[in-house]
């Protein structure tokens, strides 16, 4: 499990990613927006993994995000994957709240 300092560093880097993404998306193709948010979700899950917070289901979601981001861009596939991941997340948290 990462130290508090380590966690702070990881979150600081994530903040930077979100800030520079926000700035970049002003000028970039609109299709990049969903990919940036998906990437942010994956990076956040990686931070959680470093804190020992990922169970198998969340790990699977993170792996799928990595797969999507490493493949050639395909908007149809991305849309289907986002729908599927969002639904899985909804089902995952149903018993938690």
């Amino acid at each position: 499990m990462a130290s508090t300092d380590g966690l702070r560093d990881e979150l600081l880097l994530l903040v930077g990613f979100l800030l520079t993404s926000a700035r970049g998306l002003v000028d970039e193709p609109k299709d990049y927006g969903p990919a940036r948010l998906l990437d942010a979700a994956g990076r956040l899950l990686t931070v959680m993994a470093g804190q020992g917070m990922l169970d198998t289901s969340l790990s699977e979601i993170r792996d799928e995000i990595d797969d999507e981001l490493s493949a050639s861009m395909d908007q149809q596939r991305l849309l289907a994957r986002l729908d599927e991941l969002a639904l899985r997340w909804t089902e995952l948290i149903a018993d938690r709240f």
Partner: protein
Amino acid sequence: MELLDAVFTRRSVRQWKTEPVRDEQLRGLVEAAARAPSGGNSQPWTFVIIRESGRLRRLRAAAPGISGAPAALIALCLDSLRTGQKPCTTEHEMHLFSLGAALENLLLAAHGQGLGACAIGSFHVPSVRSILSLPEHLEPKLLVALGHPVSQPDPPSMRPWNEICFFEEVGTGGEH
């Protein structure tokens, strides 16, 4: 690897092993990039190779186009000491085309060495400038993220031949 094999099998790789890339390999990639044609032999480029993990992590945050964790990055900068300060001119466009040619050389050289690379155009220029301590005359235009690939991505979908190529006149037979 034969040249055309390299052209047709190169992919944009975005997942890498943690294994570092040797300095000689990185130097070789830049040497290949610098062999690209440039308008008037202007060689309008400067390359910055980044290997340190702390700097790579900061660049991953400042360059949202980087997904995955590359073992190294190479920044392709346009050098205004060689190009002059004339944005939005045909001459400036030519310098950008030259940088694009250098990029392709670099990507093919990486592929030829069994490395995987991806060109990145999405990054926050002032932040990248700061992280790399770039002087005013160097403008970062592209980053190349690279390393030893985890796998070879599937080929991307391609536009149909008859949509992208014509013989003699647009609208006439794009036979393949």
